[in-house]
């Protein structure tokens, strides 16, 4: 079998074949690539990191045992994540944390939401600046990439931790782990619209936390 070209990542088919041949490097590459995201998924179902770690280990063991049966009808990624969500769900039921992710997601897209406190804007009937910023955002001075202070990282981590679970998971997979929108919708069984609502709500909260930290607001008039 020819090795895949250096410029193109292996296709699912090539990966599955490599795994079935016992290619350990391929397996480890897969594990390293997906482990962080699998952990995030598990954490959104179960109550502790320790249990989430177990769910993730069980997921990989399930992947190994199921490799011969993987037919390529879905992507390898979706297949792996479905194994993870099934394991996490049964574990959550056993731990008696029974709220299914779909219920959490439904809850979190409901209700009115303001991206920014309405008091930051002039009212709609203002005679000069209806609906415009009254207390506006100022530009942040963020350092070059890689030079982010550990304090800034802490602010972000804390903000993410405080997000409700479905929002936390979507923003983590999209913006931290870099998944594409259709992949998130697939793995979490979300509609496009709901995925976007959850992402929007999560991003606005994290931005607001950073704004408070940078203390970057100014009067517009």
């Amino acid at each position, binding site marked *: 079998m020819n090795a895949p070209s250096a410029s193109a990542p292996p296709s699912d088919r090539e990966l599955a074949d490599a795994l*079935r*041949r*016992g290619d*350990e490097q391929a*397996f*480890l590459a897969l*594990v*390293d690539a997906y*482990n*962080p995201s699998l*952990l*995030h998924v598990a954490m959104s179902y179960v109550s502790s990191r320790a249990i989430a*770690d177990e769910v993730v*280990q069980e997921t*990989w*063991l399930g992947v*190994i*045992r199921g*490799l011969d049966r993987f037919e390529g009808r879905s992507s390898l990624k979706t297949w792996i994540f479905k194994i993870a969500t099934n394991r996490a769900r049964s574990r959550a039921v056993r731990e008696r944390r029974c709220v299914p992710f779909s219920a959490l997601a439904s809850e979190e897209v409901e209700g009115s939401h*303001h*991206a*920014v406190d*309405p008091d930051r*804007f002039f009212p*709609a009937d203002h005679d000069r600046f*209806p*609906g*415009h*910023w009254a207390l*506006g*955002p*100022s*530009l*942040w001075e*963020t350092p070059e*990439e*890689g030079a*982010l202070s550990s304090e*800034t*990282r802490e602010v*972000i*981590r804390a903000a993410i931790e405080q997000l409700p679970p479905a929002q936390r998971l979507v*923003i983590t997979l999209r*913006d*931290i*782990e*870099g998944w594409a*929108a259709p992949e998130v919708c697939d793995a979490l069984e979300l509609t*496009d619209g709901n995925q*976007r609502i959850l*992402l*929007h709500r999560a*991003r*606005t909260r*994290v*931005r607001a936390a*950073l*704004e408070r930290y940078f203390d970057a607001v100014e009067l*517009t008039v």
Partner: protein
Amino acid sequence: MSTEDEMRCRDLVEVITDYLERTMPAHDRRRFDAHLRECPYCRAYVEQMRQTIDILGSLGPESFSPEARRELVRAFRGWADSR
């Protein structure tokens, strides 16, 4: 663009994710862009949202315990050898 059609700041912040995700209809996108040309505060807001996303993208992955990783390698070898 008539003033009725103009996007207001408080509306822009509600639809920014559709804009950044490129799922916004063309007409709304034009209104969004037109407003950005006029409003330095909304330009700052969009910039902040982009910076927020960039910072999120720069966070490192969760740590993975070496023993757990070794255990998986053993399991994988065991499976591969038994085929």
